[in-house]
Each structure stands twice: as structure tokens, then as C-alpha cells.
């Protein structure tokens, strides 16, 4: 029964080219929706209040320094991924940012390079895999961590293992930094979340489409192939 449904789907997509239908992108939708519900519960009771308190009670310059510090680590990974994609100019820019900000910006706390107008690259392993032509694979919603795909999630795991934060010996410091990184990320999504709740009929669907569009856009460096005008 299931097999027949699967064959039907493959057949239909061969005929109509409807490769982008939600069913194809999100084959685990029932499981993902449960994950989403779990996420909502955990996030609403624990994570969001912490992030909100962080946003409300931490002075703006401190939050900016925290953002810059982790942004500097992002830049290091951008350099690696620029190189993996053979983007020499971007690698130069991002390496310049890392050297400037680590050296003169107190370990990245101050974004001196940004003030000097060196644009911030934004490359990660998921984008590199996409650039290499690896398909995104099924969409996943992971409680606490949020939306991802098999491809992008693999990139995130590699990144977490390779992070310079892991070089710190003291486990308490390391845990504190990871937590701060996480809270900072969550706090930065508070405004977008407000908008999402206002705009979406079904937040699950809205998040999925936003995430997949955004990733496609990043893989193609802001110039994704035009979507098919009008539908099947």
C-alpha cells in the first residue's frame, strides 16, 4: 500500500515535475509536527523566557559584544567554507575580518572590520554541500534546535565538533559559552517570531517554507534560480 503510494508519487513527479511539493521535501511531516509541538512546549516554558530576560536585562553593548564574539567564530567557518567552495575573494574578506577582529577587536568582541566596511560573509558547511550539488534531503524539525535538513544538519554537527569553543579545557567555561551562544541566537529570533505569529496561518508550514527558501537563497549567494512562475 505504502509502496504503491510511493511509486505513484515518483511517477507523478516524473510527469509533472512537481519536485518541490511539501510531500517530497518533508516526508517525515507527521513526526516533525510532533517535534514542533514538543519544541513549542519546551521553548515556551524555558528557553524563550530566558532569551527574553537576556534581551530585556542585558545592556545593549554587552549583547552586541556577545553577538560579535560568536560572529567572529562564524567568520572563521566562513573562511573555511569560502575555500571549500573556491571563493577566493570572499575567503580573503572573511580572513581579513577574523584577523582584524581577533587581533584588534579583543578576541572578536568588537567588530572593527565591520566598522571599516569589510562585508561579513555568511557561509557554512550546509551551503558548501549545496554548492557541491548535494541535495538538501528531507526537512527535519528538531526540538530546541529548530528547522534544518539532513544536509544542513550534518553541517551543523561538523561545525559543533570543530568549534574553537571546544579548545577550552575548563568544562564549566565551555558549557557557559555554548549556553551563551544558544541564548544569544534564540534572543535574536524573538522579533522574527513575533512577525511569524502575526503572519502565519499555520506556523509549522510558514517556518518550513521560510527556512527552505532562505537556505536555497544562501546556497546560491542571493541569486537562486527563479521559482517556476505559477503552479503545476
Amino acid at each position, binding site marked *: 500500500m505504502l509502496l504503491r503510494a510511493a511509486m505513484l508519487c515518483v511517477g507523478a513527479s516524473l510527469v509533472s515535475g512537481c519536485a518541490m511539493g511539501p510531500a517530497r521535501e518533508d516526508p517525515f511531516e507527521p513526526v516533525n509536527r510532533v517535534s514542533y509541538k514538543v519544541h513549542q512546549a519546551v521553548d515556551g516554558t524555558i528557553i524563550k523566557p530566558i532569551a527574553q530576560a537576556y534581551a530585556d536585562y542585558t545592556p545593549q553593548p554587552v549583547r552586541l559584544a556577545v553577538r560579535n564574539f560568536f560572529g567572529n567564530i562564524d567568520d572563521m567557518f566562513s573562511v573555511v567554507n569560502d575555500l571549500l567552495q573556491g571563493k577566493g575573494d570572499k575567503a580573503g574578506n572573511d580572513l581579513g575580518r577574523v584577523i582584524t577582529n581577533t587581533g584588534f577587536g579583543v578576541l572578536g568582541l568588537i567588530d572593527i572590520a565591520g566598522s571599516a566596511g569589510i562585508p*561579513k560573509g555568511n557561509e557554512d558547511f550546509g551551503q558548501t554541500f549545496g554548492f557541491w550539488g548535494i541535495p538538501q534531503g528531507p526537512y527535519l524539525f528538531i526540538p530546541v534546535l529548530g528547522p534544518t535538513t539532513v544536509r544542513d544538519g550534518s553541517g551543523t554537527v561538523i561545525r559543533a565538533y570543530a568549534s574553537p569553543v571546544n579548545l577550552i579545557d575548563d568544562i564549566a567555561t565551555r558549557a557557559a559559552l555554548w549556553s551563551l551562544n544558544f541564548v544569544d541566537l534564540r534572543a535574536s529570533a524573538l522579533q522574527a517570531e*513575533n*512577525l511569524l505569529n502575526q503572519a502565519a*496561518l499555520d506556523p509549522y508550514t510558514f517556518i518550513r517554507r521560510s527556512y527552505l527558501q532562505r537556505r536555497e537563497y544562501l546556497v546560491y549567494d542571493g541569486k537562486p534560480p527563479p521559482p517556476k512562475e505559477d503552479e503545476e
Partner: protein
Amino acid sequence: MTMPRCLRMGAALRRLGVVLLVLVAVPAFAQEAPDALVKRVAQEALSIIKTDPKVQAGDQTHIGDLIEAKIAPHFDMDRMTALAAGRAYRQATPEQKKRLADEFKSLLIRTYSNALNQYRDQTLQYEPLRADPNATEVTVRTQVMRPGQTPVSIDYNMEKTPSGWKAYDVIVAGVSLVTNYRDEFTQQVREGGIDGLIKALAAKNAGTAAVK
């Protein structure tokens, strides 16, 4: 027999006057370029945000009214609705089409007024338009600059209409609003038909109105 000199002068002046009037009026009727239009409307909106006390107090109703008057006319709501609802739209009755477009419009206005209110301190940058002067479809690109962070791109897909250029999609950081809503609309239509979709939008609009 011959006209008095002063009268002939008068006629000539009148003719000159007509010519002058035409010269002045024609550029005003010519269409404003799409990038100039986006810039003008955005600047106007930003200056209102920065000076209007009611907007600064976060009066969502007032902000909504302003958007309805200043910004909404520059969007082609029918085309946006048609793109988002796809096949269901083509099969809908004119009355359903109208109700759908109306509900969609008020949802977008609410969302947009919320967004404007949140991002009021950001500055906008406009990229020069690179398009064929005869093009009837263009993408106008803008960027929201944020201190210490990568800029957020906001692109407008626009079309030429007899009443000026109009936007039919907004793409924020690579996320197209129309594409997002297409998924949502498809899902609602599958569950409850086009009337179900209209009802869901109306409920959403009423709900957010009640919360505010």
C-alpha cells in the same frame, strides 16, 4: 479686417501657454521609475515613522490606516492573491476572489505594520536598478542596514501597469512572501476549500485584532 495687434499677441500667448502646460504636465503623467517609486514610498513611510507621535506610540490601527493609504496602493493585491492561491483562485467565483483578496490584504497590512514598528531604527539602502528601460517586470533591491550584523535584503518584484509600477511580491532575506503563502493557502484549500481558506484568513485577522 485684421485683428488688433494686442489681440493677436493675446492669442499667441494663449497658445504658448497651452504648449507650456503640456510640457509641464507630460512628465508628471509619465510613469515614475520603479526604483524611484520604491525609494520615494519607503522614505515617506520612514519619515512618518520618525515624526508621527501616534506611530511612535505603537498605535497599530493608525499605522494600519497609513499603510492602507500610502503603501497598499502600490501593490497589485489581485495578482498577489492569484499567485498565492494558484489553481483555487482560478476556479473561484468573482465574489470569492474579492473576499480572499480583501482578507489577504488586511493580513499583510497587519504584518507589515508590525514589521515597520519593529524595525523603525534601521536605515535603508537602495541599489541602483539594472534593467532594460522597456522591461515590464523588474526586481527592485533594497537593504536594511543593522549595526554589527549582516544587512537584510528586501527585494520587490514589480510589474508595469497603466496606473504605475506595482509590487506583486516582497522577498525578505531570500524568503518570498507569495511563495510562503502559497504553501499555507494550498493546505487550507485542501482542508476546507476556498471558503475554508477565506474563513481561516478572516479568523486570523479577527484574532490578531482582538489581541492588539
